[in-house]
């Protein structure tokens, strides 16, 4: 009985969940149009990581960001992006990890990115820093093509924006 209880307790404490600090975390996208380039930033990043208490390594993560929270300082443009991405039907962009790998000091995360209701597996190189207070900072960047997610790039004055969206993120996880 004692052994069983100890084993159960030990297993329960093997991992910890850390939630994102929405005051500091952000995800930013950059897009191009023949007339101008622009960026939009969301500071409303909902994310969670599961940490192995022994190795302090990230085992899993899940991230959700509402399309409506991306701010490019132009509400008409941000609203147009919501139209292009059918944000009423698909309000969130989500990512759930399937694995974390380390190879020659470079860490990568592989997982499912769901955008506009379409899911693709992507692999993103990341950098991880742990502060003295246990806060974990994860940064990285990657690019996606809108058409891969069945999105028609928005157009202005008859000219379509470039298919590529470049993203970078800086997410803080706290106890």
């Amino acid at each position: 009985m004692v052994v069983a209880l100890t084993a159960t307790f030990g297993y329960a404490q093997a991992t910890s969940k850390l939630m994102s600090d929405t005051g500091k975390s952000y995800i930013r996208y950059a897009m191009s149009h023949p007339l101008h380039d622009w960026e939009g930033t969301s500071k409303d990043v909902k994310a969670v990581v599961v940490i192995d208490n022994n190795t302090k390594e990230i085992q899993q993560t899940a991230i959700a960001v509402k399309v409506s929270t991306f701010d490019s300082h132009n509400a008409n443009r941000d609203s147009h992006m919501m139209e292009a991405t059918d944000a009423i039907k698909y309000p969130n962009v989500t990512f759930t990890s399937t694995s974390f790998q380390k190879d020659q000091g470079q860490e990568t995360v592989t997982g499912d990115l769901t955008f506009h209701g379409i899911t693709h597996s992507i692999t993103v190189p990341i950098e991880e820093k742990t502060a003295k207070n246990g806060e974990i900072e994860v940064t990285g960047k990657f690019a996606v093509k809108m058409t891969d997610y069945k999105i028609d790039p928005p157009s202005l004055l008859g000219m379509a924006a470039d298919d590529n969206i470049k993203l970078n993120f800086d997410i803080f996880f706290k106890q």
Partner: protein
Amino acid sequence: MRIRTILFIVTLFLSVGQLSAQTDTSKVQSDTTKVQNDLLNSIMTPQQEHVKLLPDKYPFTQKILWGQKGLMRNFNAFQLSPEEREKELKIRRTMLKMHQALGFVTLAGMAAQGVVGYKLYNGDYSIKGLHESLAAGVDIAYFSTAALALFAPPKMLDERKGYSSIKVHKILAIVHFTSMIATNVLATQLESHPELKPYHRAAALTAFGSLAAAMIVIKF
């Protein structure tokens, strides 16, 4: 006989083991998906799934038609719902594309008026009829352009903080709208008050300049 029996039993166990491994792989995959979904669901609050259908603030011209208690909401086809709002946004997109196209037509008409008006101002009264006809055409194009923007279904979001090209576009719209009204009002007074001609010209040039600026600023 005994060896055969043993070999048979061993082969049987290996086969069962293989089948079990295949089943375990798909079970592992569905377990992984479940873990992914559970983790994602732990951060998906009702607020995260909710989309506000109308912004808090938008022009009263849009509110009259498309607000929660707007005139269009009296029709079954335009009852406020997520699906209806998606259709409205397509209507909005079409109206704004027409607004852009007609804006260019208006600007071209104003430029033509500038050439004709200059000749008229300098004494060539033979083209007064042309100037008045062009004025009617420019008025129709201009106020149609304005109506397409003023009465379109509202965008999804409230205005963002800080500078944006669209805010400047809207400020310039106030300038060219009032200038257009002034140009037309002064035009009606010119027969009895010809001394107002310079003011009519100034109002027309202000309308043209601010309209051109409003279109250029969109580039940024």
